[in-house]
């Protein structure tokens, strides 16, 4: 059985599950415990098939669906296989989690949600597999639609409806740009199969047009500044498994498409594309992380952190593109490896974090950081597993997030003598900015985890919060172990990525890396740079146990409990802890120009003083509102045409007639 067929079977199973769910849309138990585990199993099968597919030659199949001239072409090469594996790994976790997560009476009927969820998965898988423009567009929009319906699953809330609308609109605008991009790529051959797009050799101008269109289209989906505005609205609105999938994989499909077009379909890369991508990515990363630190809604916070990580991913892509255009395959491969590694890592830890917030949301009904806290005592499972995600997200060794950042920084260090001097000067700056972003994301994650899970419960009801159900725990644990595994054993992962980089930039790291054994990660040589997370962890762990034992033996292991000391301050309340606003305050001060801030400070004489600060996105005022106004103005003008008077209407038709006759009569 062909590998691709197995993957298609998995997709078919997903769709089938969705349809079966429609049979009894309101039977929560049946949908949750009956169907979702199956789909999780299917996801695992997908991982297996995809990982095998990485090492197989490209396979393609033509379905008898689609347009007469352009049936669905599907093709699985290493690039597709890699992303499929990521999809499988993430969806396995979210699916099993959803089995425990699904509740009655949360907006759309469970069965319908199940259908949307699985269509979403199928859409993403097909996006990765599609091998012609039509199939791609169909899969792409199915993905967008399904996720849109998931976003507004709880559509009673006006804010959620607004978020959904904004999301769908931007997705559609992006799709239009993508369609135009394909239109340029086919270079007037009228053949929209990728096979044909590959062989076209466009002039630099048209190639750049195509690239920019693709950047707009996929940037809108990935949340590249300034097309990011939908992201922080939509992610909090969606049910947590959906947000996990959207943030974990859907954004990556945009990255996939970017790679596909820039490295596979376009047969040339210009250096400034890379520079553009680099700059935008950097801006996005900084913007995202700065906004992450000042959020007060935990899912919004995570959404912004997704923006940040996507930014980092685009930085890597941009670097790779630059090196490619300058014919430095080794460096390109290194950058691309970092990128793809981060793709995988982010898929895992971000979905883990979103699922964690999901359990918190169900246990407490709160998303507002100002009303959470101290949950580590009520819900230890959720807390500790989320901690893994948080540490990974803040790029700390020895977890998954660190490896990709390490590789990325290495890329900067290895960057020497680019042909263009100012690029050479630019590289250290970018490196510094990336380091800053990494550090700031640590700040944000400490805020996130600390405020949600640590400290005193800020509300009375939190004391009654229940921990994650066992199915949810399995889901969380699956993803958490993924983060750890990716962090501890980077070498096999890089071997897998090597397949992709060989395909895209004709160079891979596998040989050099394998030369140093599976324990040590050294992209070029040990003398140059090396990192071995496992030893790292072992030494720390050994020291810890040794110290602990030593202390026990030499002294004692007693422990007494008492009320907190707090400089002897007698009566403390949970309100005395830092709020999330307080935690974000220094960042607000330092990065003031990023924000569009409105503060209501109480005057000394207020009877009931209130402190309020609203932080908004400048781009909203810079770009979106002007566009909206412009469109409305045009519409108002258009309205003039239709003003009800029959004589005027007759006049129109009369004048049209005369004009046409004049044109023809000549």
């Amino acid at each position, binding site marked *: 059985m062909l590998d691709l067929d197995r993957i298609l079977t998995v997709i078919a199973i997903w769709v089938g599950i969705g349809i079966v769910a429609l049979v009894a849309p309101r039977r929560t138990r049946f949908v949750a415990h009956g169907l979702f585990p199956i789909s999780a199993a299917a996801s695992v099968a997908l991982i297996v098939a995809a990982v095998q597919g990485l090492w197989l030659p490209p396979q393609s199949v033509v379905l008898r669906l689609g347009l007469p001239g352009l049936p669905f072409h599907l093709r699985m090469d290493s690039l597709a296989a890699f992303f499929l594996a990521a999809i499988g790994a993430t969806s396995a976790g979210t699916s099993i989690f959803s089995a425990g997560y699904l509740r009655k009476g949360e907006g759309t009927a469970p069965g319908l949600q199940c259908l949307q969820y699985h269509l979403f998965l199928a859409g993403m898988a097909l996006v990765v597999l599609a091998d012609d423009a039509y199939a791609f567009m169909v899969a792409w929009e199915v993905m967008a639609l399904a996720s849109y319906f998931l976003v507004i699953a709880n559509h009673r809330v006006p804010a959620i409806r607004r978020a959904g609308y904004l999301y769908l609109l931007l997705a559609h605008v992006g799709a239009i740009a993508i369609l135009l991009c394909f239109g340029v790529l086919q270079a007037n051959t009228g053949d929209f199969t990728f096979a044909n797009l590959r062989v076209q050799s466009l002039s630099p101008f048209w190639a750049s047009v195509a690239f920019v269109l693709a950047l707009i289209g996929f940037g809108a989906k990935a949340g590249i500044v300034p097309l990011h505005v939908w992201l922080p609205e939509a992610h909090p609105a969606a049910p947590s498994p959906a947000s996990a999938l959207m943030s974990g994989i859907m954004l990556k499909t945009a990255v996939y498409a970017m790679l596909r077009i820039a490295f596979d379909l376009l047969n040339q890369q210009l250096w400034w594309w890379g520079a553009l991508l680099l700059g935008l990515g950097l801006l996005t990363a900084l913007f995202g992380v700065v906004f992450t630190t000042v959020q007060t809604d935990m899912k919004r916070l995570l959404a912004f952190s997704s923006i940040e990580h996507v930014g980092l991913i685009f930085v890597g892509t941009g670097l790779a593109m630059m090196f490619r255009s300058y014919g430095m395959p080794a460096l390109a491969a290194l950058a691309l490896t970092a990128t793809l590694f981060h793709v995988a890592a982010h898929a895992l830890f971000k979905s883990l974090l979103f699922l964690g917030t999901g359990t918190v949301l169900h246990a407490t009904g709160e998303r507002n950081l100002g009303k959470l806290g101290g949950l580590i005592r009520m819900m230890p499972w959720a807390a500790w597993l989320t901690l893994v995600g948080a540490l990974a997200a803040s790029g700390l060794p020895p977890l998954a997030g660190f490896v990709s950042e390490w590789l990325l920084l290495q890329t900067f260090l290895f960057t020497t003598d680019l042909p263009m001097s100012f690029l050479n000067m630019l590289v250290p700056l970018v490196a510094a900015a990336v380091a800053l972003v990494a550090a700031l994301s640590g700040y944000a994650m400490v805020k996130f985890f600390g405020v949600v899970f640590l400290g005193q419960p800020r509300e009375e009801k939190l004391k009654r919060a229940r921990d994650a159900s066992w199915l949810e725990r399995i889901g969380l644990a699956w993803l958490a172990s993924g983060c750890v595994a990716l962090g501890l054993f980077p070498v096999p992962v890089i071997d897998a990525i090597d397949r992709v980089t060989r395909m895209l930039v004709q160079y891979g790291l596998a040989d050099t890396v394998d030369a140093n054994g599976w324990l040590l990660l050294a992209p070029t040589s040990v003398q140059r740079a090396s990192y071995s997370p496992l030893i790292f962890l072992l030494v720390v762990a050994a020291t810890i146990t040794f110290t602990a034992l030593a202390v026990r033996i030499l002294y004692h292991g007693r422990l007494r409990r008492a009320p907190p000391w707090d400089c002897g301050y007698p009566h403390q309340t949970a309100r005395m802890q830092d709020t999330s606003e307080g935690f974000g305050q220094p960042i607000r001060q330092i990065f003031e120009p990023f924000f569009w801030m409105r503060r209501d400070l109480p005057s000394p004489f207020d009877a009931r003083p209130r402190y309020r600060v609203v932080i908004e996105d400048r781009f909203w005022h810079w770009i979106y509102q002007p566009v909206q106004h412009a469109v409305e103005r045009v519409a108002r003008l*258009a309205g003039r*045409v239709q003003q009800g008077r029959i004589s005027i209407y007759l006049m129109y*038709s009369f004048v049209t007639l005369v004009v046409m006759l004049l044109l023809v009569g000549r």
Partner: protein
Amino acid sequence: MLPFETGLTLPPFLTGLTEAPLTLLLASPVFGALLLALLGHLRIGAWINIAVCALTTACAVWLAVEVARGATIVVYHELFFIDSLNVFLVTLTAFVGLTTSMFSRPYMRIERDQGRMTGPRMRLYHAMYQLFLAMMLCALTTNNLGVLWVAMEAATLCTVLLVSVYRTPASLEAAWKYFILCGVGIAQALFGTLLLYLAADRVIGAGEGALLWTHLNAVKTQLEPTILSLAFVFLLLGYGTKTGLVPVHHWLPDAHAEGPTPISAVLSGLLLNVALYAILRCKVLADGALGNGLPGRAMVAFGLMSVLLAAFLLLRQRDIKRMFAYSSIEHMGLITFAFGLGGPVANFGGLLHMTMHSLTKSAIFFAVGHAAQKAGTQVMDEIRGLLQISPTVGWGLMLGSLAILGMPPFGVFASEFVILTSAMRQLPWAAPVLLLALAVAFAAVMARVQPMVFGETNVKRLPHPPALVPVFLHLGLGLALGLYIPPFLVSWYMRAASLIGG
């Protein structure tokens, strides 16, 4: 000179074989009209209506099968003929006519319960509905451009009566505008037909033959260009008025908004198609005679204008039916644009889009009808949260809107994809314009539809079950065709496309 004196006569076995379905096709609605003129006011009237439509559809399918077997059918001394271009339109018309009659049965009953309709009006409504169908089928199947004109005019008259059936001030105003504007438009078409006749007269010689499309098509290259160019202008503007091309579209939103919803459905789904079909027939001749692509360019211009203006006007709508009327203008513009581009691919896209649009748009109007009835208003701000009252209506409206906005995997996207891609090839600058318009339309319609479907409701429950079989039948077809177009349909479209040429 009387009809039967001219024209070549077909071998009897052929006529004997082929006259039957066509005769039945045309006769059954006329008969139905007469019958309903007597019984239309009774409860059973609606059922008769459905039955007759079913019969018509059956004949249409029969005809389709015949055509699928053989080539073009020409009967009644060439007065009527069926080729691959009009046969699928015939089938479509009959089918949508049937589903609409199914939808109209419960819908109109409620209207009657609510006192907006009375017995006599029901009679008028049913009779005119059938007559309207008959006229459109006649217009589609006739070979004589004069008869085509007559049928179009007659169809206008029927629909005028149908639009004004409520006798409310608004409906009267709409009907009046509809009548005057379309009357004037159609008059121009008549002048165009006249000029065509004049041109043919010099080649074929006066008489019946000179207006038969098949004959004209045979000699189209010899027709006098100067006359033909003028004739095409008049015909384009004349029938274009009925197609709802900007800037002669003004009757369309009013008529759609104020008439009964089933009528809006058939207006959007069928009448516009038929008018466009008339334009196509004329375009073929004009192209043949002129050979300078002028007709194509004109249609492209009108198409673009329609798409753009309609898209922006969509932003300003408050009345739900009016909004979808504008979306009809937009899509008609798109189709006209496609045929204006010409060439097999674009024509294929245009024909496909015709089909998809009538299926989807009529489905939308069905859903809209129920929604408006439930809410007791057509003002969109007062319709909220349909999903809670009746999920089927809600989803019908939502999916229909997404489909009409060109969201995959629905069929409209397929045809739009074909049209846009061929635009990218033949008229690169036009593609971004169209896409911009589509984006605007998307923003406008979704902004309106979403709150109507989702959220808290303010709509009261109606005692009756809505007839949603038609809605989901149409949407299902649209979805199926978006994913898979059966080969026989493809070959059909291909043949039709090659017929249009350009």
